[in-house]
């Protein structure tokens, strides 16, 4: 989700809604007459977000110029709109019917969408940071503005994981901690950058969908694989161009001449001696401490992990490449008469393989999933019989969305869901001073199913009426999100 914080110059705002990038004075509109500087805020005069899929019953379709190639040029085609919960408000404690219970028709079937903003006391974010750099030990506290807001959790392949927020930090750790936690997870959910520090670890700038910045250094790439895997992938390309390759990695450092991949090709022994703990031939654990140097280790000088070469095997002029798993760090050496490595310029033939390692790394990103439980009284806004809503969700009769975005509903009890915050329209999340987060949530089902679970049938409002009455803000459904009223139409890139 893009950062929507406007750039300012004095009291003027730089609008980023289109490439003209107007500077707008307070009270004035930009060149388009659509965006306004309202006392320092860039606004598009509206509160409620309505997703445009098309427009129903004879009204024209909205399509996007970016996909003009796919449009057949037909000016009339039917479609639909979906009312999201963003800006809908909430009725906490939810004994009253939810703010919007909207009926519409899709493919001739009467559908109901219950639209509300839930107050989530039990909620947090799971953050995946694509980096091998050591951010902190598992279970280490993670802080924002000095307050503990979560911890480092189990790492994943090529990524470090943080678990932030949750009821213990929001309401169980005192006022200051609660506020810091709420601010941090709210900003992360709304796509803003947040600086986090890990006890005895790194400082990392995290923003959903953007590369992480670890200790002030922008992380551009994920490692291509562990050191051993890198040897396996590139052995063929190195063979004959260099005598030895060491791929430095905090997890497993690989050595070409000893590795199975080198043996298969017939790479000669080089007499190299490594620090660290040998796992299997050519694979070393713990060559150095974890850190933010080469390949997620603390290494700044790669020669520091080598012992003296075995004089019985090594030879003067032996050529050696040392490289990290992202290719970002690399050095080339040749042994002198005393079998000491001397740094030399990287030969052109090897430069190509270094580029190849870099090319095979995926861009590193921070990704943020909001996770919350729509339990308790929120369900009462939907139905007089709350447990039936839970059952209906489990039975897949009711489709849950968050600002129109698909969610993963965790199996088991309750309605605990996860959503990728970049798939939710911008600034969809809010907070209450409890502190707790406010997130949009929509429940969509057939009219007959809604009646059966004890829905507030007397509060149903037709879609047209909601569209006409509320002056909502229309947004395109985000690329790749399925249409909430017909989720099976789209590819399911979600859980």
């Amino acid at each position, binding site marked *: 989700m893009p950062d929507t914080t406007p750039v300012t110059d004095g009291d003027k705002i730089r609008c980023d809604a289109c490439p003209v990038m107007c500077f707008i004075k307070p009270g*004035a509109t930009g060149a388009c007459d659509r965006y306004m500087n309202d006392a320092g805020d860039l606004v598009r005069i509206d509160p409620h977000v309505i997703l445009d899929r098309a427009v129903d019953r004879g009204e024209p379709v909205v*399509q996007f110029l970016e996909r*003009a190639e796919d449009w057949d*040029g037909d000016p009339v085609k039917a479609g639909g709109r979906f009312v999201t919960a963003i800006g809908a408000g909430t009725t906490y404690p939810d004994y009253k019917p939810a703010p919007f219970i909207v009926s519409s028709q899709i493919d001739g079937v009467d559908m109901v969408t219950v639209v509300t903003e839930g107050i989530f006391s039990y909620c947090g974010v799971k953050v995946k940071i694509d980096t091998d750099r050591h951010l902190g030990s598992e279970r280490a506290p993670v802080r924002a503005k000095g307050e503990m807001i979560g911890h480092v959790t189990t790492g994943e392949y090529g990524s470090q994981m943080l678990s932030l927020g949750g009821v213990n930090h929001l309401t169980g750790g005192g006022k200051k901690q609660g506020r810091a936690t709420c601010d941090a997870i709210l900003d992360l959910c709304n796509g803003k950058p947040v600086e986090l520090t890990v006890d005895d670890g790194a400082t990392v700038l995290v923003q959903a969908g953007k590369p992480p910045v670890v200790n002030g250094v922008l992380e551009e790439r994920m490692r291509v694989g562990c050191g051993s895997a890198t040897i396996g992938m590139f052995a063929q390309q190195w063979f004959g161009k260099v005598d030895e390759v060491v791929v430095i990695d905090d997890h497993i450092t690989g050595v070409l001449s000893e590795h199975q991949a080198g043996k298969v090709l017939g790479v000669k022994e080089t007499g190299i001696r490594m620090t660290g703990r040998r796992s299997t031939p050519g694979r070393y654990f713990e060559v150095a401490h974890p850190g933010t140097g080469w390949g997620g280790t603390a290494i700044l000088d790669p020669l520091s992990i080598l012992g003296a070469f075995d004089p019985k095997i090594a030879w003067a002029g032996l050529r050696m490449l040392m490289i990290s798993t992202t290719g970002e760090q690399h050095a080339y050496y040749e042994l002198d008469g005393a079998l000491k490595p001397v740094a030399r310029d990287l030969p052109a033939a090897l430069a190509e393989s270094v580029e190849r390692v870099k090319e095979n790394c995926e861009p590193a990103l921070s990704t943020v999933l909001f996770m919350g439980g729509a339990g308790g009284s929120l369900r009462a806004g939907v139905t007089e019989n709350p447990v039936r809503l839970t059952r209906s969700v489990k039975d897949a009769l009711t489709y849950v969305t968050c600002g129109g975005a698909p969610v993963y509903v965790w199996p088991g009890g309750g309605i605990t869901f996860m959503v990728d915050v970049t798939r939710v329209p911008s600034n969809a999340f809010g907070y209450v001073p409890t502190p707790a987060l406010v997130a949009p949530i929509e429940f969509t089902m057939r009219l007959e199913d809604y009646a059966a679970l004890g829905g507030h049938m007397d509060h149903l409002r037709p879609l047209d009426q909601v569209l006409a009455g509320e002056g909502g803000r229309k947004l395109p459904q985000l690329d790749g999100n399925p249409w909430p009223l017909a989720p099976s139409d789209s590819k399911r890139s979600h859980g």
Partner: protein
Amino acid sequence: MREPPLIRPLADGRRVHLHDGPIDLILEAWGPPAAVRAAYRAAAVRMNGLLDELCLELAILRAPVGDLSPVPAGPVARRMHQAVQPYAADCFITPMAAVAGAVAEAVLAAMVHSAPLDRAYVNNGGDIALHLAPGESFTSGIVDRPDQPSLIGTARVEARDAVRGIATSGRHGRSFSLGIADAVTILAAGAADADAAATIVANAVDLPDHPDIVRVPADSLDPDSDLGSRLVTRDVPLLPAAERDRALHGGLRRAAGLISAGRIVAASLHLQGVTRTIGLFGQIDQETEPVRRMHHA
């Protein structure tokens, strides 16, 4: 957040609205249904990225054109530059004076190129590019106050006329005017030519030293205005007939010069309820009802 550009067919099922940032185009085409669809699609494809392309050269396009000023590279930007070039020697003008017409022309060209059409137009906020197959014609309504639209006359353009562009400029539209005309409508060979000329003629309808005309620096209203600190008209008092005619006369002289130089075909000038035309034009009322002479609040 960059708002996605839109294709929005209008409720009549015939016209299409293309929108990106400050650009709003209304298109309509006539011909076999398949050709019309192909033309709409081609228009949408052409429009995609057009604003981004212009914005890359925004600094050049907002700068006054002179002998030493840089020539932009993009095709639409070059057309803007070319359309204002003839005026650069004797007055202040920037390529932005032709932006609306040049965009309309570019999108119309894509439509005409994609399919055989009988007629088509691209209306970019009152600056209109026309396509007419032999024997076809268009009738356009003329409005003297864009902020209070009502037709005061029509302009009929035949295929045999050398007119494929209609543009209107004045002090009530989206952009600022250095003059006091309520509106100036120009017929010219292309929409970009008409657009540039409308700006020039509207600026020429003026009473430069009149003490009661309120003028403020353009950049005090819009910090990004290509007019910089030049004074633009904000309010005009009700003028006595002699002064009003003197202002109109200034504009007519400028328009007559442009007609004899072959840059435009016709002009229609409107100020406080009075309309003067020059060159080929349809039927226009010479004076509309007095209520039009109300002071602009």
